[in-house]
C-alpha cells in the first residue's frame, strides 16, 4: 500500500460567472430570466407580492389555503382535468408561501414550457375557487397542520416566534398559521386575498436555455388580464433585544430527544452587514466544522446535528440555533451551546475559521447553483430584495475579501446570547428540574 502523502496543489480556477440575466418588460410585469445553454429542463416561477406578510392579524394561513386551492380547478378545467393536463407535460405545480412572496412554479422539458406556463397562469390568475372546494381545502389544511405539529419542531418554533415578535402581531405568529387560525379562515377571506394580492402582474422568473424560449410570449401569458401597480415596501421592524434570557418549555411527553430552538431578533436581509453577519454565523454554526457542530456533535456526541444561522426577510431577521439532543443531556447541551455563542460574540473569529467560511460560501455560489430550479431561486432573491443583476459576482468578491476584524465586529454587534430566548420541546417531566437547577434563564411553559 502506497499513498501519496502530500496534499495536492490547487489547479487553475475558472472565472466565476452567474448566468446572464435578461429583464424583459411585458405589459405591467417583468420577466427576469437566466440563460443556461444546453439545459434540458426549464423552470418558470411566478413571484407575487402576496406573502404571509399580507395576511391580516387573525387570518394566519389564508395564503397557504389559497395556494392549495389554486389546484382545485380553473375557469376552464375542473380539478382532475387541471391535474392531468399539467402532469401530461411532466409538470407538477409547486406553490410556496413565504413572508415576502407567494410563488407558483413549474419545471418541465424546455419545449413544453409555454404550455406549462399557460396552465400555471390560469391557476394563479383565474382559479375557480368554488366555495365548497375552498372549505374542503381549509379543513384538509387544518388536518395537515395537525399532522405537521405532531412532529417535533413546529410548536417550539411557534413559541420562539411569539416570544421574539409578540403574539399580538403577524410576525409573531407562525408563517403558515396554526390549526386554530386556519380553521377560522373564511371562504371570503381566501377570495379577498386572491382579489387583493394575486392579480397584480408581479414577476415571472425563468431559468433554462433561453435560445429555445420566447420570453415576451411567456410574459404575455403570465401577465395577461392583470392590473394594479407594484406595492410599496414597508420599513424594517427594527431589532429589539430583551435585557435577560428566557427559557420556554414545550411539553412533548415520551420524547427521546429535546428539540432546541434558540434565538433572538436580527436585522433584515438588505442590511449592510449581511455579508459579515452571515460569515460570523457560518463560523459559529453553518459549516460542518463550525464551533457548534464540532463541540456538540463531534466532541460531545449529544446530537446528530446542530446549526446556527441568520434567517432574514424583507422586514426582519432572526438568529436561530436548532438541534435535537438526547433527553438526558439537554442541560449540558444548552449550556455548551450558549457558551459557544457567547465566546463568538466576545472573542470574534479566527483567520483559519474565517477562511473556511469565506471559501465555502463563495464556492456554494457555483456548487449549489447548477439547476434551473436553484437559479430561479437565486433570481427570486434579486427581485425580492431589489438587488442588481451583477449581485452574485459582487457577493462572491465581498465574501472572499471579508476580514477577521469586520466579521468579529459583526459577531459582537449582532449576536446577543444574553438576551436570547431558549425554547426546549421535550419531556418536561424529565428535564424541568435539571433546567431550573442549571439557572440558564427564567422558565415559563408555552401555551401551545
Amino acid at each position, binding site marked *: 500500500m502506497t499513498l501519496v502523502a502530500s*496534499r495536492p496543489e490547487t*489547479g487553475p480556477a475558472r472565472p466565476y460567472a452567474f448566468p446572464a440575466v435578461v429583464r424583459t418588460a411585458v405589459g405591467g410585469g417583468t420577466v427576469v430570466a437566466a440563460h*443556461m445553454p444546453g439545459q434540458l429542463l426549464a423552470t418558470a416561477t411566478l413571484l407575487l407580492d402576496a406573502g404571509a406578510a399580507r395576511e391580516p392579524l387573525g387570518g394566519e394561513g389564508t395564503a397557504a389555503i389559497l395556494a392549495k386551492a389554486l389546484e382545485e380547478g380553473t375557469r376552464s378545467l375542473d380539478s382532475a382535468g387541471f391535474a392531468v393536463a399539467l402532469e401530461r407535460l411532466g409538470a407538477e405545480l409547486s406553490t410556496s408561501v413565504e413572508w415576502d412572496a407567494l410563488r407558483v412554479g413549474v419545471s418541465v422539458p424546455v419545449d413544453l414550457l409555454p404550455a406549462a406556463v399557460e396552465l400555471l397562469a390560469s391557476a394563479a390568475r383565474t382559479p375557480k375557487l368554488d366555495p365548497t372546494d375552498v372549505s374542503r381545502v381549509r379543513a384538509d389544511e387544518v388536518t395537515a397542520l395537525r399532522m405537521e405539529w405532531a412532529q417535533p419542531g413546529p410548536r417550539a418554533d411557534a413559541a420562539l416566534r411569539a416570544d421574539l415578535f409578540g403574539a399580538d402581531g403577524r410576525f409573531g405568529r407562525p408563517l403558515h398559521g396554526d390549526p386554530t387560525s386556519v380553521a377560522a379562515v373564511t371562504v371570503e377571506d381566501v377570495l379577498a386575498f386572491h382579489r387583493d394580492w394575486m392579480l397584480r402582474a408581479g414577476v415571472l422568473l425563468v431559468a433554462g436555455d433561453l435560445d429555445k424560449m420566447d420570453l415576451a410570449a411567456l410574459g404575455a401569458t403570465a401577465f395577461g388580464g392583470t392590473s394594479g401597480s407594484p406595492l410599496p415596501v414597508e420599513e424594517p421592524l427594527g431589532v429589539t433585544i430583551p435585557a435577560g434570557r428566557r427559557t420556554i418549555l414545550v411539553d412533548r411527553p415520551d420524547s427521546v430527544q429535546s428539540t432546541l430552538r434558540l434565538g433572538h431578533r436580527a436585522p433584515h436581509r438588505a442590511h449592510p452587514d449581511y455579508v459579515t453577519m452571515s460569515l460570523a454565523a457560518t463560523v459559529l454554526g453553518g459549516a460542518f466544522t463550525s464551533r457548534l457542530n464540532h463541540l456538540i456533535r463531534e466532541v460531545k456526541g449529544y446530537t446528530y446535528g446542530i446549526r446556527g444561522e441568520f434567517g432574514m426577510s424583507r422586514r426582519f431577521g432572526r438568529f436561530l440555533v436548532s438541534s435535537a439532543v438526547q433527553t438526558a443531556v439537554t442541560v449540558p447541551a444548552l449550556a455548551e451551546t450558549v457558551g459557544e455563542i457567547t465566546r463568538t460574540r466576545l472573542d470574534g473569529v479566527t483567520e483559519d475559521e474565517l477562511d473556511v467560511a469565506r471559501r465555502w460560501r463563495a464556492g456554494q455560489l457555483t456548487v449549489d447553483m447548477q439547476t434551473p430550479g436553484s437559479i430561479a431561486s437565486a433570481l427570486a432573491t434579486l427581485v425580492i430584495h431589489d438587488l442588481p443583476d451583477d449581485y452574485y459576482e459582487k457577493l462572491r468578491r465581498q465574501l472572499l475579501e471579508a476580514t477577521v476584524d469586520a466579521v468579529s465586529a459583526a459577531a459582537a454587534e449582532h449576536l446577543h446570547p444574553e438576551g436570547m430566548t431558549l425554547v426546549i420541546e421535550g419531556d418536561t417531566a424529565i428535564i424541568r428540574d435539571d433546567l431550573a437547577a442549571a439557572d440558564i434563564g427564567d422558565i415559563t411553559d408555552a401555551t401551545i
Partner: protein
Amino acid sequence: MTSPSVPVAQTGYPWPIETARLDNGLRVVVSEDRSSPVVCVNLWYDVGSRHEPPGQTGFAHLFEHLMFEGSVHVQKTEHMRYVQGNGGSLNATTNPDRTNYFETMPSEHLELALWLEADRMGGLVPALTQETLDNQREVVKNERRQRYENVPYGDAWLRLLPLLYPEGHPYHHATIGSMEDLNAAGLDMFKAFHRQYYAPNNAVLTVVGDASPAEVFALADKYFGALDPISDIPAAPHGHLPGPATEPVRETVTGNVPAPRIYLSHRTHPFGTAGYDAVTVLATVLGGGRGSRLYQRLADGSRIAQPDYVGAYGVDLAHAPAPLIVTATAKDGVDAETLEAGLIEVLDSVVTEPVTEAELERAKALLTTSWWRQLSTVGGRADTLGRYATQFGDPGSAGYRLPAWQAVTPDDITDVAAQTLRSSSRVTLTYLPNPAHPGEPS
C-alpha cells in the same frame, strides 16, 4: 390548443462516458461536461447493510461515519475542512445495497478530492481510535432517535423490512441497525470491516463535470494506483427468494400518532429488471401526483384520505425483489378499516380496470421530468453512473432506463400487478392513535 407531449427519449444519458480499469481493479468512470466550473467525485463501494451478519446490524452505516474522521495523512476534522474550506459540498449514504461517498467541488480542487478519497480508501485503519468510534456511535444513536424514534410513523420502514423479508435474508434488517448492536460494536470489528470491503476492486470511482477523461485517468492512477486489491471479498448472504410471499402478514401499532395510517407492501422484482420498470411506472400511475388513481379516488373522490399523504413508491433495491409501498393516512373521522378497504380497492383496480393509455402517458411524463431532474447536477449524474457501473457492470446502461420506462405497455402493468400485488402476498402495517393520548395537543 393542441396539447404537446413529452418526446420519446432515444437515451437517458446524452453525455459522453469513458471508462478505465486500474491494474488493482478500481473502475473509473468519467463524464465530461464543461458547462459549469464544478466537478463531482463519487465512490460507490459494493458493501451495504445486506452484508451485515446477525448481531452486527448498523455496522456499515456507522462505518460510513468513521470515514469522515481522518486517515493516515488527514487529521481528524480535516476532511470536512478541506472540502468545505475549498467551496465544496459533501456527504455519504448507506443503504442495504451499497455505501456511496461524494463531494462536488469547484473544479480546481478535483485533485484534492481524489487525494482525500484515496487516503481513506487505503489508509483509514491506522487512524481509527476508540474515542472516534465512541463519539460517532453516540452521533448515530442520535440519528436513530431523530429520524426513526421521535417522529410519528418514523419507524415504519424498520417495521416493514422484517415483515417483507424472512429471517436471515440480507434485507430483513434496516440499515440504521439496533441500539443493542450499535452499543456492542468494537473497534477491531470496524478495522476488520475496512480491510474486508474497502478495496479498489470493490469500488467504482466516478467523476462528472469540468474535467477531461485523460486528466482523471492519470490522477486516479496517481492516487489510487498503488493501493492493493483484496483477493477474497466475501459475498453478501444470498438474496434469492422462491417467489412472492404465500401468506399475508399484518402488524398493528398503537402509539403517539395523530391519525390512522396504512402501509400496504409487496415484494416485486429487483431494481434493473423489466418487471421492476413496470413496477416503477405502476407506482406513478397509482400514487404520483394529483392525477394518480390513489389521489383521484381516495383524496378527491371518496375523500377518506388526507391529500398530502397518499403515495406509492418502489424502493430501488437491486439484490432481491424490491418492495412496492402504497400508503394513505385517514382524514378526520375515517377509521383504519375504511381506509384499508379503499386502498385495497384501488390496488385491485389495476387488474380489474386496466390502466389506460392516458394514465400511462401521464405517469411516463412525470417520470421523464424526474429522470432529467436527477441528472441536472453533476452530483446526480455521478451517482447514477456509479450505480449502473456497480450493479450492472456498465455505466452506459444508465441510458436504457428512461427509454425502458417509456416502453412499458398497459399489458406489462396488468401482468406485473396480477403477479406481485396479490392479497396472499401482502404486508399490511397499520398505525392507530393511542386512545389515551389522541395525537398531540393543538
